[in-house]
């Protein structure tokens, strides 16, 4: 597996199916005042973001193309791009 196959869910193009490789719980940029990594990882897991799951961005928000609506198994989850960057995917 080449490293450049990997990208984050937050940077995925609309309609491009991908598979979750890793949940890192850490956003790409480190703004202060966000919830901590462990908590984010937990919440993503609770919503069903898990290694091996298929994901696809279905829709983007009207302002700044944020948040995104992600198909995850049979569900659709709304998530902001910032948190989606904690999900590493393989196209």
């Amino acid at each position: 597996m080449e490293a450049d196959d990997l990208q984050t869910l937050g940077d995925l193009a609309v309609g491009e199916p991908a598979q979750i490789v890793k949940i890192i719980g850490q956003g790409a940029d480190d703004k202060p005042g966000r919830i901590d990594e462990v908590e984010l990882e937990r919440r993503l897991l609770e919503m069903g973001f898990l290694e091996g799951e298929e994901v696809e961005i279905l829709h983007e928000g009207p302002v700044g193309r944020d948040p995104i609506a992600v198909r995850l198994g049979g569900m659709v989850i709304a998530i902001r791009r910032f948190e989606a960057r904690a999900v590493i995917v393989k196209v």
Partner: protein
Amino acid sequence: MSVSEVAYRLALVGSPNSGKTSLFNALTGARQKVANYPGVTVERRSGRIKTGDVVVDVIDLPGSYSLRGRSPDEEITRDFVLGQFAGEAPPDVILCVVDATNLRHHLRLALELKAYGRPMLLALNMMDLAQRRGMEIDVEKLSQELAMPVVPTVAVRKAGIEALVQRLSLDIKSLAESDQPSDEPWQPPSIAEFRHLHGEARRIAQAVIVKEGMASTVSRQLDDVLLHPLLGPVILLAVLFLMFQAVFTLAEMPMNLIDSGVVWLQEVLGRSLPAGPLRSLLLHGILAGVGSVLIFLPQISILFLLILLLEGSGYMARAAFLMDKLMAAVGLNGRAFIPLLSSFACAVPGIMATRTIDNPRDRLTTILVAPLMTCSARLPVYTLLIAAFVPNTTIFFGAGMQGLVMFALYLTGVVFALLVAAVLKRTVTRGSSQPLLMELPSYKVPQVSQVLLGVWTRVKIFLKRAGTIILGIMIILWALASYPAPPPGATESAVTYSLAGMMGRALAPLFAPIGFNWEIMIALIPGLAAREVAVAALGTVYALSGSEDAVVESLSQVLRASWSLPTALALLAWYVFAPQCVATLVATRRETNSWQWPAFMFTYLIVLAYAAAWITYRVTLALT
């Protein structure tokens, strides 16, 4: 009590959108009881079912993704399941509700519950949907894998419910008597354990799903339009606009009916009763007062009906999605949009709806700004003053001046709600920003019976208020405005000499700078209990203080004759912030569990109201 009459306690647990509440409604039907958990405003929904010689008390717990208890709603589910909820016995058996079309994800919660160890059975819900998709599930195998009874159900139809009831009658006794969890304190699963549960759920799902079937694309196609970057917001605005239009136009006829009904009753009673205190109390106190509040029942019912329809269809989550960026700008997230929208009907259910917001600071911020959304109780005041003081001229494209002013008042409330939220999030409720992470459920046709049940629950609350608090206040107010009676040979109107008149005049100097007269002060005091009472109170004050003609003449004409334009506009501005609503303050106190926050809310609202009224009064004075 004989042994056969022992009632088993069955708790319904499931993820949000698992169809758990529909299943509960189908199980218990009209026999359900809606009460509050002690100390909190979350509705405790329970119902008793009898089958054969078995009695089961079914308790519907708030939807929960895990047992971790991140939001106040989820905490109730956790504490109840663990048997740690004060004043509630632990459940004997848990009925875990999972969405059959989403088995992989929903089984994880079932496994988490199973690991805790309370006896349970599984309702494989939405089987009709699964079958329509061509999905096949080996129910027998699932039951073996989980080592618990599994019943396929379709909550929206009776089929499957009977099977579930039958299953309960057969199994609940042995289940309830099987091993209950040990007394060791429960620990939430670690991240590693959580991943393991997930993997296990995936493995079981893989083993029992015979055929995957084709997922429906209807929701996706609808979302292509409703979440479209350009069309989406336009449609949302149109939906909100139509909603408020409907509230006004559809309610007009029933409102007129109620109005003429009250007038008719007043005439009949007026003719048949001898003049005296009793006649005055009945006509001017009770009928005029309670009637002027009851008249808003149609508007409130329609608003709640529409909000519940939007919620039941799945559109509300889309609205939250579309609004997220705007809410993020003030430090909240899209979820806060739903309670704020409910606050247009009434801040109390709005404040209760904040329980779905998991972050305590975001939740507090939303609670604190909820009263700035113009609630339906302020409509009577707006309607009255606008009818009296704003000319009914058409400005452009059929849009009237009166409608425009009404819209401006609503908009001012919204703008200030956002501004105040932004200020609070940077000061008082400052903290880390919260992720959105919200499921967008599939669209569905809302279930009529469920929506109507929801409207009826809220209408009952409103009617109860009209019959108790508001009725009581009207009687007190009538007494305050009638006694002591004016001395013989008094030159001014009766209310001037009454206790109410004295109180109003005592407070008047404080409010003179914003143009309020003592009559307004009399109306504002009872308005503390319920904002809409202010109109009734004005009616009482002016009916009592004026001649017989004044009673006949409509209130808006009376006001036009006795108030200046700056005073009227100042009162409108005051009502945008209208801090005086005891119900809202009590709900805030219950939800925040302290008197500090309602006190803070009252203070900031009254400061804003006073400032807005002062500016409006001074500017209008200078311009006219």
